């Protein structure tokens, strides 16, 4: 088992490198450069040249990449050209906002999605099922930013119940987490339902009835346990989907998370910031997939044995 975990971890290294190269080249293809953002009225050409040299922007791309990579091994992701702070420090500052939102949203979508899925599967083909699935489908189809705006409109403006934005308090996490979480919940509800119905049609379920087990026990102990295995896998695969959703939501709710950092970095062409935040996001997703794989292996004894 541990061998499997280590092998999967090692596999992340090449992915990391390829990703970093792709991100690095892509952002340098984007027209515009960060130095222009630093030029104000009266500044001289000589000063501009000094800045360009300071950030190695005059060197060919592979050299720039090599410098960046070499620094990375020293744990240094570079210094923001615009913000003048080490990228690691910026990430430390922005990450908690994204992490708290992302994790709350994932937890919310899991709990909400799975319970909706159970409800729907248990009441298959009744109006409860149809209602739950319509809600789930809307959850999947509503763009996160719009939902966020509407929630602000309803809860913050019309009802004056919750704060619109801000990032410090727990209360300010509610609306954004619900916004991101609903989309995920819809997806998970659908998968849970399909998965549960599939498990429910398996022979062993009939046998459980024959053993005299009650409907509820079968549903919660056996069907759910089996059905959650694919749900976990897909949750892991879709972790990027959830994190991607947080980008626009962070903007709508003015949370200074990774998404905000990335987008402002992108608009200012602050290369080290884009690289740092994008890589962190990407690695977060790769890590999520990895965790899902491991979790999958732990929950399904058949898979666990394959890795033994």
């Amino acid at each position: 088992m541990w061998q499997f975990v280590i092998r999967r971890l090692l596999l992340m290294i090449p992915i990391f490198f390829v990703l970093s190269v792709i991100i690095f080249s892509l952002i340098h293809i984007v027209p515009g450069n960060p130095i222009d953002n630093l030029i104000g009225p009266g500044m001289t050409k000589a000063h501009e040249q000094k800045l360009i040299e300071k950030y190695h922007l005059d060197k060919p791309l592979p050299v720039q990449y090599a410098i960046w990579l070499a620094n990375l091994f020293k744990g240094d992701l570079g210094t923001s050209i615009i913000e003048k702070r080490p990228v690691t420090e910026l990430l430390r500052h922005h990450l908690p906002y994204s992490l708290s939102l992302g994790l709350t949203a994932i937890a919310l979508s899991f709990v909400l999605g799975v319970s909706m899925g159970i409800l729907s599967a248990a009441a298959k083909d009744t109006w409860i099922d149809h209602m739950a699935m319509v809600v789930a489908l809307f959850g999947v189809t509503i763009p996160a930013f719009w939902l966020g705006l509407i929630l602000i409109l309803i809860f913050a403006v019309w009802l004056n119940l919750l704060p619109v934005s801000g990032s410090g308090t727990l209360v300010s996490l509610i609306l954004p987490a619900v916004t991101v979480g609903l989309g995920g919940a819809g997806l998970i509800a659908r998968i849970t339902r399909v998965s549960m119905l599939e498990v429910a049609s398996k022979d062993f379920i009939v046998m459980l009835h024959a053993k005299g087990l009650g409907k509820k026990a079968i549903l919660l102990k056996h069907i759910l346990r089996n059905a959650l295995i694919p749900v976990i896998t897909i949750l892991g695969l879709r972790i990027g989907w959830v994190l991607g959703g947080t980008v626009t939501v962070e903007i709508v709710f003015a949370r200074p998370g990774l998404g905000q950092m990335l987008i402002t970095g992108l608009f200012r062409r602050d290369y080290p910031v884009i690289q740092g935040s994008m890589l962190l996001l990407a690695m977060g997703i790769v890590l999520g997939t990895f965790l899902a794989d491991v979790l999958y292996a732990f929950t399904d004894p058949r898979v666990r044995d394959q890795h033994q």
Partner: protein
Amino acid sequence: METHQDQESIIPPANRWIRRVKKIKSNKAGLLGAFIIAGLILVALTADLISPYSYKEQDLTMMNSPPSTEHFMGTDEFGRDVFSRILHGSRISVYVGVVSVGLSVLLGSLLGAIAGYYGGLLDRGLSLITDLTWSLPEILVALLLVAVVGAGVECVIIAIALTYWAQYARLIRGQILMLKNEIYVEATRSLGATDFTILFKHLFPNAIAPVIVAATIGIGQAIVLEATLGFLGMGAQPPTPSWGAMMSNGTAYLFISPWVIIFPGLAMMITVFGFNLFGDVLVDIMDIREDTLK
């Protein structure tokens, strides 16, 4: 529970297509989805005829007026009729959705089929790219690509196509891998068929069904992605009304004229809902296992 009955009674293999049409007729959700899509296309085609007002003519005396009998979805920051703009906006949505998904399906299924059939280095390269695409949120990929390609609807289409193609490639690759080991492929090959004929005449048509379904749902996703990019300020250029751009422009007026945001969002929600319903039904009709789509 079908399995149990099937053990007891072997259903005679009826004509698959007749059953499919029957199924869609009896499936209310599918019909609703089909109606929504048809309605959307109709609106997009006849936007000029059915719009009560011009989508771009400004009337600065009527700025941000609430829904009324005259403008039943209100007016926007330049006094333009929101309803007319939503009608015209459907064009962008349909255009972006269909063309970008079309492009990505074309590219994806071509590369996916070749990779699945020949395997080897190409296949490994494709797997790597798919893995990488999985590891970045699609909105970021699209955002970066738009930044590279430039602003405007066509650029957004290219960016979305490039963001999505890998998922179709993956899908068709899996199908081809499954099909290429079947006996009839061996048989056609022994009859002297070339790789090209086998791949595109025999395997491809059999592998395409799940792709069609995925693409239907994908159009919905592409519409949302376009709107999200529009929300971030990339996409259709003014005065072209795209739903995403309308909502983006409306955010500044959230408290003053919420209708500018609410209605385009509803329009988009219904549209995407329609595509999803229809896609779900297609899964059912074409007897595709759900998990092949994941």
